[in-house]
């Protein structure tokens, strides 16, 4: 149960960061924190007690292993997450170009 609650905790912590953020780059990092809760949730669902990683190099094929599917999902998730974060930061830099500020409360209502 604890790992699931950790995922909830991290998601809420990321949301808190987004809400209180005073800097768009800071916001992007908080979004990444939010996203990392999905990795933990997925891996926690696929985990099995006394099981090893699903790599049959040196282990007999009868060995109990954890779920490889959720790991595959998480794997691609992580790499795509960083590409999307870099896109968000590029957008933040463009906003900075046009309004000379990264603080959302100063950007709102300005005409570029």
């Amino acid at each position, binding site marked *: 149960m604890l790992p699931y609650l950790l995922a909830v905790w991290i998601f*809420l912590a990321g949301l808190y960061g987004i809400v209180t953020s005073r800097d768009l780059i800071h916001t992007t990092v908080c979004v990444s924190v939010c996203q990392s809760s999905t990795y933990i949730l997925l891996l926690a669902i696929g985990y099995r007690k006394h099981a090893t990683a699903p*790599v049959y190099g040196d282990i007999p094929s009868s060995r109990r*292993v954890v779920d490889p599917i959720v790991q595959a999902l998480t794997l691609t998730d992580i790499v795509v997450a960083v590409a999307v974060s870099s896109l968000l930061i590029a957008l933040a830099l463009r906003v900075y170009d046009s309004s000379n500020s990264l603080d959302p409360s100063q950007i709102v209502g300005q005409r570029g």
Partner: protein
Amino acid sequence: MTNQLRLALFGVGALCVGALLVWGVLDLPAFGHYAGPYGEIIARVVEPQRHMANAVTAVVFDYRGFDTMGEELILFSAASAVALLLREIKEEDTISVVDAVRSDALNGVGVLASVTTFVLALYVVAHGFISPGGGFQGGVVLATAFLIVFLTVEYHAYERLATTRFAEPLESFGAGAYVAIGLVGLGLGFSFLENFLPLGVTGRLRSGGSAAIVNWASALAVAGAFVLIFSEYLEGNMAARYGRGRRL
């Protein structure tokens, strides 16, 4: 909206969302007691059916290859969008950059480290179906090999090695090859992205069939995408620091 009001609103919202999430996870199978049949089936059939030792890469590039194609295209479009957003710098803005590392020892070690990293990346990609690793991880390591040149030698040396002219075709070729392999299989009478080549021997470098080609294609696409993203960020930085800098 004042900060207090904002926080109060967030508190109410977070309580509700948190309660919903906790309620949701309470009905999941207890931690360590995975119940679903799919992972169990894949883990049992992956070796006899696909001759791959690493079940995770087998799922990524073979069983769910179509899914990964979507991820690949997200990566492709994100990297292209970064290039589109940040490319305002003209070449003359970075031509005056003086950024060379003036230490022969550091240069030498840097080149050595870069080459070693390059080989390590190829190793990680090639052994994707045997040990942990594969196209995604190896692709990022491949991009790192170029970055080490920037860190230890000079910006212009990095620029010549990893120009966007080189990274962009690499990324496009990788993403295109991924789709093309699926289409070739389709033309030969298989389903899209179905494994149509001889599968080889489990645990050998030549195993995986056509999924091995998909693995290499995605390695190229990931490496190209990340070199492109890094180049755009570094270029903007150098222009802001040393160039005349019209805007940033």
